[in-house]
């Protein structure tokens, strides 16, 4: 039978946790202890480094034929109030106006637009690369790739190969919601299934692409569903190995079909991060997406197993349509301060977790040096 102590022993020995272990971690009343286990694991992998990047979010269309219950962003068709589809030139201009301090990554997530030609997306990507050839294009969720395959009568391999030829570098993790069919069929019945989502990533990984993956929690799912979701990610990662980061996304209830639900709490956010870190032993990074959880909770999450707070983002609209009170963007200085105040060393990364700049941590007061010496059992230790 799982107990916190048997789980702690497994983690210390580098053993894989079971479904029952995961459920216990969600249910155990001592959630600080769960956080402590996750923090130890996070520290073993990343020491006191915390990652962020300079990215830019663009949503080129919010027209979407899917009817996901949790979504406050989508508009069913062009002409509906609030419906918007950018011309490619408009999207490019978003980058052009930021070339004095350019992002290293453009992150594009869209609605499933039924009438745009495939060439629109190819031209979109090509244009960004013309403006900034070294920008990394992390665009289109697996749900979009699946939709493209159906709409344009192509295989996943063909869609991805053609988009890669136009400049696509990586896929974001959006669209995973909850994999278990009991939940997925209720909240997102008319888009890619769990199997289709994972197959898209499988194909992408085999093409050499690195991708992320997500889980939307805090709505109608149970803890068992969350653990099941994590195990499916882990299983896929064993097969194809291309997931860089797992990103738990907090459900926001405003303006969507589940607005009667309360949404997750701060403790739930932190515990979910912690359990993710412990269950996903083959995924390097756990991201606390500050837009979904607020910058303050994301900062605390760095002590609960997360090692990444995402990036500057600039102009996020999907979560803000669902009532997120977080700012729409943070400056690099703001992210650095957030990380430093939590006692971590800020590391600006590129999309692939290559180090762009490793910034010094906040200066340790003299007392901290003494305490670290005592913990290390040393009379004198030079701290780097």
């Amino acid at each position, binding site marked *: 039978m799982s107990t*916190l*102590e048997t789980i*702690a022993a497994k983690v210390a020995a580098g053993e894989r946790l079971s479904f029952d272990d995961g459920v216990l971690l*969600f*249910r*155990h*009343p*001592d*959630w*600080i*202890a769960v*956080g*402590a*286990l996750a*923090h130890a694991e996070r520290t073993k992998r990343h020491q006191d480094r915390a990652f962020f990047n300079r990215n830019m979010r663009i949503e080129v269309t919010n027209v979407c034929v899917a009817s996901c219950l949790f979504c406050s962003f989508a508009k069913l068709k062009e002409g509906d109030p609030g419906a918007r589809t950018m011309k490619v030139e408009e999207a490019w201009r978003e980058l052009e106006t930021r070339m004095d301090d350019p992002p290293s990554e453009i992150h594009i997530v869209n609605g499933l637009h039924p009438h745009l030609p495939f060439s629109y997306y190819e031209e979109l990507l090509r244009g960004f690369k013309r403006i900034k050839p070294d920008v990394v294009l992390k665009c289109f969720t697996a749900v979009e790739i699946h939709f493209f395959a159906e709409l344009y009568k192509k295989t996943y391999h063909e869609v991805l190969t053609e988009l890669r030829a136009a400049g696509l570098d990586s896929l974001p993790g959006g669209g995973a919601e909850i994999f278990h069919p009991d939940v997925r069929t209720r909240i997102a019945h008319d888009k890619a299934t769990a199997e289709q989502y994972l197959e898209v990533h499988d194909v992408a990984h085999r093409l050499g692409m690195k991708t992320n993956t997500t889980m939307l929690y*805090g*709505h*109608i799912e*149970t*803890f068992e569903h969350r653990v099941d979701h994590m195990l499916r990610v882990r299983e896929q990662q064993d097969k194809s190995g291309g997931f860089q980061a797992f990103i738990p996304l907090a459900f926001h209830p405003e303006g969507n079909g589940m607005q009667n*639900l*309360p949404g*997750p*709490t*701060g*403790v*739930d*956010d*932190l515990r979910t991060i912690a359990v993710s870190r412990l269950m996903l032993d083959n995924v390097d990074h756990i991201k606390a997406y500050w837009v979904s*959880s*607020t*910058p*303050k*909770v994301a*900062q*605390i999450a*760095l*002590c*609960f197993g997360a090692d990444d707070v995402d990036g500057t983002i600039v102009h996020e609209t999907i979560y803000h349509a669902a009532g997120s009170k977080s700012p729409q963007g943070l400056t690099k200085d703001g992210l650095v301060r*957030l990380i430093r*105040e*939590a*006692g971590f060393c800020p590391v600006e990364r590129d999309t692939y977790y290559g180090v762009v700049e490793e910034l010094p941590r906040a200066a340790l*007061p003299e*007392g*901290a040096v*003494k*305490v*670290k010496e*005592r*913990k290390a059992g040393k009379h004198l230790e030079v701290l780097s």
Partner: protein
Amino acid sequence: MTTSKVVAALLEREGLTPLLAARELGQEPPTGAAELLGNCDILALGAAANVVRRRECGDEARVYVPVPPPASAGVVVLTSSETARGTALLRRIAELRLLGPIGLRIVIDAGSLGLEIAQVALSFGASDLATPTASRRGLPMALEAYAKTLVKRREIAAYVERAGYAPVFVSEGHASTREDPVDSPSRANVDS
């Protein structure tokens, strides 16, 4: 809730056990305690503060509606005027719990600091929270408005319970009521 072996090991590793023992005996904190707390692992700090909070304030968390009680010798109220935020705020709360007077009521103004942070703070030594939500007093009110008020109270009750505490609502007149457990789909999963 008893201290798990995981937490006990964490407290031992961070050198916090003597401080907890001294406090339980009503003794002064060991020399250098403030420096130790200022530099120890934040989760160890939270775990230690939580142990002391349960010992001294029990398993209940007061929810002051709609405003916090006035600060006094035994009551500290933390509002948005605090400069500390996020992890720094949690550290400040835990240090108050571990070095402050026995049984100190530490009230977090959830209205200005946010319900999420207030909830997390309950596991870092805070004893109570205050929210601007309307109380049941003030009737008669429209049925719809009354229902909304109830939803808000239930939501706050769920936040407190998910942190592992039993909410006790305290209105301006200082009458307290314990909130009945709520059977929402998400809360049904929590053992606390």
